[in-house]
């Protein structure tokens, strides 16, 4: 995949820069901590693959703010997707890694971009298979709208107005890029 390439195509339009991303994540971290909810039972779960690094960063920030260990895990929702048969690509599993029991926890699910809501739906199914959390919240770096399911984020970094046919891509330093959110308009997408 293009993760290996560190070049951003010219027609990708940067809509959120690195500094803004950092600020958004800091804000989300504080919001999670400050929310009047049981902080002692907080745990973060990133959704592979897009949410994993975002979740790690928020997790790190929260640990710094709180100065204590907060449980962290990642889930692979491939086996819970509802669009497997439509995909042309052979699905690859990266694995689920939840080194703590979810039961009774206040879980904050983390993803990079919220779009139709189908990924979150799959993630909720997966979470429930692993136990009975006391509460599940959702944090996303960007919300681009066009929901197809009744799903609403609790913490949002940026709201991005998009057309349904556009593509939104998040590139992060963990993948070898400078942080940035890009908009690829439908008529440009054909180029790449």
């Amino acid at each position, binding site marked *: 995949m293009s993760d290996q390439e560190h070049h951003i195509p010219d027609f990708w339009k940067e809509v959120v820069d690195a500094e803004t991303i950092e600020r958004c994540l800091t804000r989300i971290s504080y919001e999670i901590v400050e929310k009047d909810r049981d902080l002692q039972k907080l745990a973060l779960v990133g959704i592979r693959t897009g949410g994993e690094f975002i979740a790690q960063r928020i997790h790190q920030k929260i640990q710094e703010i709180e100065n204590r260990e907060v449980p962290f895990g990642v889930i692979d929702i491939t*086996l819970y997707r509802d669009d497997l*048969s*439509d995909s042309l690509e052979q699905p*690859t*599993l990266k694995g*689920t890694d939840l080194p703590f029991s979810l039961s009774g926890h206040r879980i904050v699910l983390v993803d990079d971009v919220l779009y139709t809501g189908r990924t979150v739906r799959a993630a909720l199914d997966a979470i429930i298979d692993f136990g009975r959390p006391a509460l599940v919240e959702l944090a996303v770096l960007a919300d681009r709208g066009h929901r197809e399911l009744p799903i609403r984020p609790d913490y949002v970094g940026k709201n991005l107005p998009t057309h349904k046919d556009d593509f939104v891509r998040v590139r992060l330093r963990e993948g070898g890029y400078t942080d940035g959110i890009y908009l690829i308009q439908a008529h440009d997408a054909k180029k790449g």
Partner: protein
Amino acid sequence: MNVDSVRFQHLLGIEGLSREDLIFLLENSQQFVEVSQRDLKKVPALRGKTIINLFLEPSTRTRASFEIAGKRLSADTINISGSGTSVSKGETLLDTARTLQAMNPDILVVRHRSSGAAHFLSQELTRTAVVNAGDGMHEHPTQALLDCLTLCQHFELAPSELKGKNITIVGDIRHSRVARSNIWAHQLLGNKVTLVGPATLVPHEFADEEAFGGGVRICHTLREGVEGADVVMVLRIQLERQSDNFIPTLEEYTRQYCVTPQVLEGAAPGCVVLHPGPANRGIEISSTLYEGTQSLVEKQVTNGVAVRMATLFLLGSRGRKENV
């Protein structure tokens, strides 16, 4: 990674897979190990899919393993067993398969005593993915996958790192689909394969270039064959080989080829033992060894489910042919 969606249209054998294909399958299989360790051992990945297990040869383990794998993926699995003698049943394998296809299954898992049976069905059935669960003496690909996965776990190596090992396979190689699939797999991974057994059961053709690429060593003496082995895979000896005159008597076979802890003294330090089961204890392998610390037999069975889940998932969730 760009994975061609038609790459795993069927799983008929290890032969024909690329090294990348094999590693991809093993890596995916590893991910499914975790699913079977959960309290709730079920994922909705193949919900609404139908898997038919057509076992026309006696089998307990493999069939159970495929059935559990299908169920843990939420597929509807149906088992059909039979003697497989098409003539005596009055219905040919093709008729049976076409009848089944008319019920629109997504995957047909087939075990048959005839080499090439899975191949044959894959050519005749257009809408169904075929998984070879053992065809005659030809191949048993999921067994080789689970053997390799077990070795990866034991040696704590990623599939791509499982190379340079000395693998010795002992027993009735001639009639063994397990041996053939493992030979292909280890050739792809880069391990050295030695085959051990009497000349009647280990024909010299196995070492020919035309057979398995020529990288296979043949040895008719057990101690020599296991020397320096990192892995010794013991195959089940079919009791009827005696009446077929491949071996004079079972005692003769045991005297020469029974694998015991003493025999493995010459193997590499940390040598482990695999057996596809069910074992004839005291004939091809000693009980002490089979149950001992060197034996990975139970791990093999556990991994069998993971490997079959990975296989069924890849075939069952693939993009539809028409779209490609």
